[in-house]
């Protein structure tokens, strides 16, 4: 592996991100109530809000880094670390909870552990609980990488993890 090449790519990436942060801040410059929208735009692109980016954003907007951090840490939607490469959202809304969301979550975690132990999981699954995802009619429901799986029972978890489509 060519270490110099890797480094160059990294530097290029960082420079690209820096530019985007200023561009996004510029787009929102004349808009009222923009900080949270800017943070959303950044997280949409990068997946999280790295410290360096927050720093850059402070420079671009004139808002203090402390205040930016205050906001990022208050809102659970914003992430300070990169997400896993598969995001699983287990709905823990009322309807799903009543219909066994907790055991679905437990089964998913157990299954992921099993896959890891077997060395079969190259992928990194991130399991989060979310509140009602808006399809209680399909409860209990799980969203994986943007696709919703509904009317589940705990035994369905291996299927979801294999990314078999279909409800």
């Amino acid at each position, binding site marked *: 592996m060519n270490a110099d090449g890797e480094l160059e790519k990294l530097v290029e990436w960082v420079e690209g991100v820096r530019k985007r942060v200023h561009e996004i801040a510029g787009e929102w410059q004349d808009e009222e109530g923009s900080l*949270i929208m800017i943070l959303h735009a950044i997280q949409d692109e990068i997946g999280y809000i790295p410290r360096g980016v927050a720093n850059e954003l402070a420079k671009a907007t004139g808002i203090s880094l402390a205040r930016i951090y205050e*906001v990022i840490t208050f809102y659970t939607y914003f992430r300070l670390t990169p997400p896993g490469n598969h995001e699983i959202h287990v709905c*823990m809304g009322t*309807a799903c909870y*009543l219909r066994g969301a907790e055991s679905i979550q437990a089964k998913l975690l157990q299954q992921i552990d099993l896959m890891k132990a077997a060395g079969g999981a190259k992928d990194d699954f991130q399991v989060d609980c979310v509140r009602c995802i808006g399809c209680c009619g399909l409860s209990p429901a799980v969203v994986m990488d943007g696709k919703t799986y509904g009317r589940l029972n705990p035994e369905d978890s291996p299927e979801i993890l294999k990314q078999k489509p279909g409800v």
Partner: protein
Amino acid sequence: MDKQPLTARELDTFVQEASVAERWIRVGMDTGGIAAGAQEVYDALIEARDSSGLDIDIQQTGSIGLSYADPVVLVGGNDLPTLVLGDMDADSARELFAGYFRDGRLLDDRVIATKDRGTDFDGTQQQVILVKDTGDGDSHHRTTIFQNLIREDLEARGLDQKIAVVRALDMGLYHRGVCVQMLPSRVTYASVTGADIRRLVDESLRNGIVLDDLLVPGGDPQERISMRNCGSIDPSELESYLRAGGYQGLKRALVDMNPEQVIEELKTSGLRGRGGAGYPTWLKWKNTRGQESDRRIVICNADEGDPGAFMDRSILEGDPHSVLEGMLIAAYAIGADTGFFYIRVEYPLAVKRVQKAIKQCREAGLLGENILGTGFSFDAKVRFGAGAFVCGEETALIASIEGRRGSPEPRPPYPSIKGLWGKPTSINNVETLATVSAILEKDGNWYAGFGTEESRGTKVFAVTGKVRNPQLVEVPMGTPIRTIIEDICGGAGHGSPIKAVQTGGPSGGVIPVDKMDTPVTYEALLELGSIMGSGGMLVMDESDSMVDVAKFYLGFCVEESCGKCAPCRVGGFQMLSLLKKIHAGDGVVSDLDTLRDICVCMQTASLCGLGQTAPNPVLSTLKYFEHEYLDLVTTPETVTSNGKGRKHG
């Protein structure tokens, strides 16, 4: 649409020209529908149409609310009333073309019978008989037997080529034995026995005589006002909304009325806020208007925080223009120049539809300068939430738009006096605004004709949990809870009888089954120790532990507490520890008194609505189901026996 701003007169042409294609299909493409596979159904329909060469209009719409049957498709044509088909998939979509539109064949177990039932045949030849056994037990088997019996009888009379006998997915009737609905008349019979089949065929189908002893009279307890267009228009087309009478309410307000008259019209309607507190909408507007300022603002609260509710999402996804029109009317009434939609970022489709609606209105001149040539100017923008329930609270919401942490501030001053950037601000809920546009299109008296003296109009509820058919329901206020749960949603759905219904989400309380005849009004629910809230209605059955439910809601509030004030931060935490302890079987009787004490303290000393109402689920379960707490305190085995409360993972 051309880029010239619309004039008031041009608006009317859309309504006048509105015509429905002869044969059409509408696919419910809201989040719930799409999650269940509506996109695949839509794609299959388009493909099947293109290869069939048939001229059939296929449209994407929002949800009509029947979540239990998603994906749902509406079909018009073949001289039948609109058919509602549920549990669709790509195959059954193709079959619509191969079977239904070609030779009138309908798939079994798809059609949902209408509750808007007919009472006579009007001399029409019936084409379809829907049949289903609505009793308990092996109803599928009995349904099939009856389907065959009716078919045989039709065959014997030579009618089998004219009339199709189709198993229904749902009859809209429950525990009424074998039911049939005949189409196009919609005449519906219940408790049909084998002996009735001959009469059904001979008298009703051949001679058009209604069998009064079996007849189920018409009467859908629902009334769609806020959800008037959900499922019937294309939410991503402005013209579709205009053809349904859209922006007529705005036109009436701008052209025929001054702002005071608009406020007066709202007063006549009796509309109260649908976001939770039920404050009269006209009064909020009057207060905001009455405040001297160089600028006023209107906000649509689309943060829908109740963890089991989806009314606002459905309206935003199914009919975003109705909310935008309501916002424009609010802005005119209070004298605002800017509006913000504060939308949960977890609702990406709602965000997309609202953004598109705004863009369309800017292009059509319904947003911007000199709207409809009346001199009124206004623009609307979208701002996202970021996963904080407390931001549904007005002052926290304002802080969030301003780019700060969403911490509530003491009220007064209310936002109507000092709101966003210190300017007088009216914050209105999604459903409230969707109703405003309907009220202005018709009039205040018309709206006031629904509901009760104190609680006027209709309310949307998201009925979920242990109910047979979870769905969105819109009923006149004053409708008994039992009608909603049993007549509309089919009652208990998971083998165990209903124990209680929770309303108002984390700020609400439980209503035990013996109080289900209570009418839904702000006052009646309050009296029972619950609240109307935003419209979540969670059904629980005998297998659900009330302590577990209380723990769930309290856990939600503790997690979502902003931590600014001690009663909520500390009280909530302590209470949750106690509930966990009790639930695990380690509690003592005196813990219940401690719980009650903390509840009172939180209710009285918390800064905002979150902390003030968080104890409600605990207090109301203690009020009606204290024995469940006591059982746990004395006999811990009851927890383990139903498998609840064990920590997983």
